[in-house]
């Protein structure tokens, strides 16, 4: 596989997973930007474990997931049922706090960053194979879990909270518990992504985890469609890939093209390219096709 394709595929997978990490709590109207801080915390922790303490990558990755989950759980105890705005503020605050803490920690490179993370498996080709395998394994696993979530009572409960909290409470939904569950899931996922993100580049720098990442994931969700997980699957490779195909002459217009695209989508299709209705249509079509096949 070409090197450029490897980077394209691996970063696309991270963008899909991180957009899902934002999508899941957004199902109940929580814009949970703490995920970016989770990426940094788990990433740097795993980097330190591997570099300084010679912990194997697999264990460091597991610790990264776990750390993300623990932080997500603890924070969600306070904001599990908070209004959207409060969740956004907590997320931004966490990003700032995390940056400041890391900046002042020479053991993880401080403002300079962390260099020279080792190749997993000892060689660059094995490293790439393992990273891609883990990332796309995660895409399949997390995609399956979210798909199941969207189609079960929990997903319907989240939809009810999204539309009207009072209505959801009257239906007997425990908003706080649901919030804790979704936020913890989201942070766990982000923690693991942080570790993998750093191991793609084999380095960590604080500027890998900035509001830029919030911008990317938000654009992916809102252009692709925020009411279904499939919007992310469509938008992540396209939004990341299209600018790479621009000839140099128009590359500097990338931001304008992005902006125009976003405005067009918001005006013409406010729910994004892929809506829940379009997913139901496809699902209906597939199920009819399946029935026909079975009958014949």
């Amino acid at each position: 596989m070409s090197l450029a394709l490897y980077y394209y595929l691996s970063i696309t997978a991270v963008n899909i997973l991180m957009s899902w990490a934002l999508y899941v709590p957004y199902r109940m109207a929580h814009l949970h930007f703490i995920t970016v801080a989770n990426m940094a915390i788990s990433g740097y922790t795993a980097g330190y474990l591997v570099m300084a303490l010679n912990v194997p990558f697999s264990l460091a990755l597991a610790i990264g997931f776990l750390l993300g989950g623990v932080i997500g759980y603890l924070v969600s105890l306070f904001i599990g049922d908070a209004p959207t705005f409060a969740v956004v503020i907590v997320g931004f605050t966490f990003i700032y706090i995390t940056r400041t803490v890391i900046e002042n920690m020479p053991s993880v490179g401080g403002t300079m960053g962390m260099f020279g993370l080792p190749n997993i498996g000892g060689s660059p080709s094995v490293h790439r194979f393992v990273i891609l395998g883990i990332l796309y394994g995660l895409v399949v696993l997390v995609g399956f879990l979210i798909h199941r979530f969207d189609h079960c009572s929990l997903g319907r409960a989240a939809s009810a909270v999204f539309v009207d909290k009072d209505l959801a409470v009257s239906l007997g939904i425990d908003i706080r518990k649901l919030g804790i569950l979704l936020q913890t899931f989201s942070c766990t996922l982000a923690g693991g992504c942080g570790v993998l993100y750093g191991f793609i580049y084999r380095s960590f720098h604080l500027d890998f985890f900035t509001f830029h990442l919030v911008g990317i994931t938000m654009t992916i969700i809102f252009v692709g469609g925020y009411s279904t997980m499939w919007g992310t699957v469509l938008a992540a490779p396209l939004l990341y890939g299209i600018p790479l195909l621009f000839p140099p002459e128009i590359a500097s217009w990338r931001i304008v093209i992005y902006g125009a695209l976003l405005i067009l989508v918001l005006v013409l299709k406010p729910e994004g390219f892929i809506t829940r209705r379009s997913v139901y249509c496809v699902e209906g079509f597939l199920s009819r096709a399946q029935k026909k096949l079975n009958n014949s």
Partner: protein
Amino acid sequence: MKKAKFVVVAAMALVFLTTGFGFAQTQAQVKEWRVPFLNCLTGAIASIGEYLQWGAERAALEINQAGGIKGKPVKVIGVDTALDPQKGSVEMARIVEEGTLVAMGPVPEPVIMAAMPIAVENGMASVTATTSYEYAVKFFPWTVSWFPPTEQRLGELVAAWAGLHPDMKSVIQFVEPYGPWPGMAEAHVKGLTSVGVKVMPKVDVPSDAVTFGPLVVKALEQKPDGIVFVCNAEKIAKIIRELKSRGWTKMDRLLVFSSGDAPELYATGGADINGVEIYNYINPNLDTPRWNAFKEAYMKAHNGNQPPSLSTNYYDALYMIKRSIESTAVTGDPKKFKEERKMIAEYMANMKDFHGIMFNWDMKNGVPTNKPTFIFSIQEGKKKLVKEVKP
């Protein structure tokens, strides 16, 4: 006698044949030398990317007018990384796979950290001419450092500055936590303490700070005799204005670090920064035909603005690449990419007597050994040389 003549003629023919043959081996096998430059052409620091690119293209223009590299023209290809590590890594991967011999950039540090490991893994040199030694050294031998190790060089420099003001007994620093800047501040501390100047606890300048009154009050409370600025250029100008509004008059006891020498300092500071001292690696007051031509062309292309301090870095970097290709057996032949990439990297790392636009310098194991530094006084937006500090 005849036999002796025959031997001499045969030996000469042999010499001609072998040197001729050798020469043919080093002939360029390319139509043009393409040098990709991973630069930030869009995004928050696009203005810096623009003049870095301008410098590189100016060098390409001059080189081509003088006959190119080994007789073939050179083309600098601007590759926009948009300050984005994601984009930078894919672009670097594409560059190494396209069979590029040597590249320039990336700019700035986050993209360097994401993209340089790809160049290293594939054995391709990429000249990172705007970052500090501490970043570049991690990617040796596949890049060279444009600056000597920070601690050593800046220590000497601020000690020399302190020597200009013998009555200055205590100094405080404003430090912004970005990339190598805290390390530069540490180097200042070591240099100042080595000459007996007391360095007070630093004042942290948050990256998102917009008002500076409280920071200035915090610094003035410690009653320093001098102040060193290690933060963003615009912030430095605003802090100096705050200092003046709170009664600071000894302008020459204010020292701005090299990264603060950017157009924003002069645009925001205006007359308020008159008398402030600043250090840097280049001397814009130099009077040589080459520098004057560069300056004139830059000003013509930039509405009369003076060339900023980093504008020459990639100009020199391209000349360094030119000399590396011309001084080795590099041909650009795709079949020999691996060894030719290595030849370029090895030659650059130990290049002697390189003729930069400002001065000549030597490289040893990827590090410049004898680049001078300069301390200036700012007067009406211009820098007046106060002292040249040689290593």
